[in-house]
């Protein structure tokens, strides 16, 4: 009687957990991966987990990845669950991404501009050929670091000619998605927060759909920059800002062709992406979806999924999504029993009517 075993849940759960721990460890004859190794050598995974876990801490993210056996959504979930226990002490000042000394900064709209194009550590022009030498991990030759330099924002150069709409600015304090429930329609502050922690795959697919006719985007990467920015807080007792550390961020300023509408003149419009870590794909997809969701504000028809903020925001969180999708594994036999009775009754009626 297998069903009885499910009722003896406690022993089953304990057994499952010890099996899980054994499977996570793998062959005990092999050395275990360390959290430092993950933080150092699986940086893109750490960045994704920090972004979707909505907590900037590479060591904790690396631990979560180890604990989750490399399942990145599970790792982000672990980080979110930890984050929720942390007291909220103070809000930081807005980070100044224009003051960043980027290690990567590219623009697709100009061949060259002040500060120049800087590729940085990118896979963009690698040929995707499996490098069998990597199995024996040779030490990479150290690179001479390019001199750090501040670089003006490319979109500011367009702004001088008024060809692009001014950067959005609000006097009111931004909302906080993690402290207040989301209400629709949501302002751009809340939409961007949701996208910054949204599922990379979902945003990628939505952004992609806008390029294929479902939302009519005409995007150009005005600028993509990656680097460190200082985080500053202003303690009330001090009255001035102090820097408490650096975080690595990726910022994408998307420039979109826009023919104008009843309420806006023809000009370039903006889509914006900002996220933790080095994450080109996430920042670009975020900027596409941000622009798509601005449709009502710019007087465009809302026709495509990516333009429908309720559709996007309600489904972009992968912790919520994985919970509800996977909960289908849980026992549902009480509901199912009532379905059984209903369908039997319906079939009886239908057969009687034949």
């Amino acid at each position, binding site marked *: 009687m297998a069903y009885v075993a499910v009722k003896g849940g406690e022993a089953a759960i304990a057994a499952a957990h010890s099996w899980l721990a054994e499977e996570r460890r793998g062959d005990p004859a092999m050395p275990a991966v360390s959290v430092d190794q993950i933080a150092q050598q699986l940086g893109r995974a750490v960045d994704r987990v920090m972004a979707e876990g909505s907590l900037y801490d590479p060591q904790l993210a690396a631990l979560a990845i180890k604990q989750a056996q490399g399942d990145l959504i599970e790792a982000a979930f672990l980080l979110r669950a930890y984050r929720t226990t942390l007291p909220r002490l103070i809000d930081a000042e807005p980070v100044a991404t224009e003051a960043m000394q980027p290690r990567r900064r590219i623009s697709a709209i*100009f*061949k060259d501009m002040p500060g120049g194009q800087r590729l940085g550590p990118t896979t963009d*022009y690698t040929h*995707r050929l499996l490098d069998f030498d990597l199995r024996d991990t040779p030490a990479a030759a150290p690179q001479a670091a390019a001199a750090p330099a501040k670089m003006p924002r490319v979109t500011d150069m367009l702004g001088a000619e008024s060809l692009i709409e001014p950067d959005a600015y609000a006097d009111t304090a931004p909302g906080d998605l993690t402290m207040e429930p989301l209400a629709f329609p949501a302002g751009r502050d809340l939409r961007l927060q949701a996208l910054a922690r949204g599922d990379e795959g979902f945003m990628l697919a939505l952004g992609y759909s806008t390029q294929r006719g479902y939302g009519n985007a005409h995007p150009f990467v005005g600028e993509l920059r990656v680097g460190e920015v200082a985080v500053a807080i202003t303690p009330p007792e001090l009255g001035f800002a102090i820097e408490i550390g650096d975080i690595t961020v990726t910022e994408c300023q998307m420039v979109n062709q826009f023919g104008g509408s009843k309420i806006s003149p023809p000009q370039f419009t903006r889509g914006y992406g900002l996220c933790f870590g080095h994450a080109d794909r996430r920042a670009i997809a975020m900027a596409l979806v941000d622009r798509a969701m601005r449709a009502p504000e710019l007087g465009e028809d809302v026709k495509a999924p990516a333009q429908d903020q309720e559709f996007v925001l309600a489904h972009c969180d992968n912790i919520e999504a994985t919970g509800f999708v996977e909960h289908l594994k849980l026992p549902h036999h009480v509901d199912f029993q009532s379905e059984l009775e209903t369908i039997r009754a319906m079939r009886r009626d239908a057969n009687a009517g034949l």
Partner: protein
Amino acid sequence: MQGYNFAYLDEQTKRMIRRAILKAVAIPGHQIPFASREMPLPYGWGTGGIQVTAAVIGANDVLKVIDQGADDTTNAVSIRGFFARTAGVRTTTKTEEASLIQTRHRIPEQPLREDQILIYQVPMPEPLYKLEPGKAKARRRHALAEYGEMHVKLYEDITRFGRVAVAYDHPVMVNERYLMSPSPIPAFDNPKMHRMAALQLFGAGREKRIYAVPPYTNVRSLDFEDHPFHPGRADQKCALCGDEKSYLDEIVIDDQGGRMFACSDTDYCQGRRG
């Protein structure tokens, strides 16, 4: 390169692509589906163009690769390096020396010859996709040559802006039968496609389509009698070679609004400077 076939793809795949190319040449402007392969460069980087090049390149070919008109842009350097490595062919930056030219977003300024092939990298082969994103429906419109919607779209532009607001990827009629995307080349380049002596091949890897314009085929940019097609360029001359007819890049030189204009076709510009 050891462990790989000449020009990366296996011979069966090349034959499959060549069959699609032959069909495409036989029906100018018509999109031929093909079993596009995963390539070692990402979709969007030119996987369609690369597969077409791999299928037609031979050991004696001389390859030129341009992106935005230039041989020295990162992606052009990368693709040229890919074929130098996997096919061992000679490469060049000189338009007149090349037998194959793979391009993204430009047509060289210098007119091409009968013994040259121009291979375009195409992101969205379907010219109707902004009007009809559904593939099956768009295909039906091509079958019936039902292109009224595209004319309406251009007409709406004229009523709203007084001009056709399409700066690049301006749709063309090929051989007066199929509406075709010229790929995102500036409208400035469209007239060069008309009755070009060279064979023009178009590869879209992610969308899995190949199409072609055979030599000396009529290619007409969509327009109206009272609003004729107008290929635009910056009204400047090249700061390097002084040319007043070529397509120009706008280069930002300071953050005070300073701009410099220079030929987008770097080989053309170099040639004029001697």
